């Protein structure tokens, strides 16, 4: 989902920066408040960031014959809500833009929007919705992580379709084309991310059932 450096027209690049900035600022304020109010949550915040760090470094083969990587933002979104992931995701994307030439600084706003904002918000919404529909914690965590991952890649496809509409079939045609590259490839990887997120959430919550543990992980209880 990393749009390469310099590949978004300047107006789009600026627009995505403007769209992302408020989320990142609000996320930073929220992050600061969480750390101040519940210092015991620091470890879990580090773990949420670390999970994103690991998963976004792993480029995995998919059934479409190409490779892509999971995002790992669902875990933190479930535990802390979507806001803080805007900050943690931006850190990961900056690391990759500066040290790996993966993504870029001009496309940072767009990449933050897809991976650090849309993905976590979708994860969080799915988590809440699945919970209110009576899904078990495990199923809700799985769905949240998998669908958040997929939403990130659909957003990338949309961003590219807006920037590079197909000469014949327009934005919709381009969306189908970029969607087939990004979103279809991502389906099995999103399922794998969902499974891994459940495993890591289990491991983080110790041996007890996950029920109240997610509240404990976020530092709200304890």
């Amino acid at each position, binding site marked *: *989902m990393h*749009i*390469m*450096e*310099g*590949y978004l027209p*300047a107006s789009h690049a600026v627009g995505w920066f403007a769209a992302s900035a408020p989320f990142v600022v609000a996320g930073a304020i929220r992050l600061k408040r969480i750390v101040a109010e519940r210092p015991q949550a620091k*470890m*879990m915040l*580090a*773990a949420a*960031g*670390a*999970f*994103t*760090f*690991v*998963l976004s*470094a*792993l*480029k*995995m*083969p*998919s059934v479409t*014959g*190409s*490779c*892509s990587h999971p995002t790992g933002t669902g875990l933190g979104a479930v535990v802390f809500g979507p806001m803080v992931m805007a900050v943690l995701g931006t850190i990961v994307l900056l690391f*990759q*833009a*500066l*040290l*790996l*030439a993966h993504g*870029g*600084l*001009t496309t940072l706003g767009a990449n933050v929007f897809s991976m650090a904002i849309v993905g976590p918000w979708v994860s969080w919404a799915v988590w809440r919705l699945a919970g209110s529909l009576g899904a078990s914690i495990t199923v809700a965590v799985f769905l949240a992580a998998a669908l958040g991952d997929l939403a990130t890649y659909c957003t*990338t496809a949309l961003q*590219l379709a807006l920037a*590079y509409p*197909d*000469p014949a079939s327009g934005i919709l045609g*381009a969306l189908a*084309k*970029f969607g087939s*590259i*990004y979103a279809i490839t991502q389906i*099995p*990887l999103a399922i*794998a991310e969902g*499974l*891994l997120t459940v*495993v*890591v959430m*289990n*491991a*983080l*919550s*110790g*041996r007890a059932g996950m029920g109240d543990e997610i509240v404990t992980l976020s530092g709200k209880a304890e």
Partner: protein
Amino acid sequence: MGTNQRSWWLLAAAAAIIAAPLALPGLGGAFKGSDDLGTEAILATHPGTQPWARPLWTPPSAEVESLLFALQAALGAGILGYVIGRRHGAKRGDDHR
């Protein structure tokens, strides 16, 4: 089925999903990165597109790039493992800090 045992099954399923494209006949392909394919798709409909910015620094070789990717994963896994260990220790009561 205990949580631990279930975790092993989930990990095995994730590994199978990742390995399947490599192992199953009839699937497969060049396994290029989807980001590169995205860029190729841009050039297919908009030939002559030139990026208007270049990365400030590019790893000089695929080896150095894979080093940095491995470093990224190792840093993340290290922190994650530390936190998981601390939480298990705290639960068992052998963490007296």
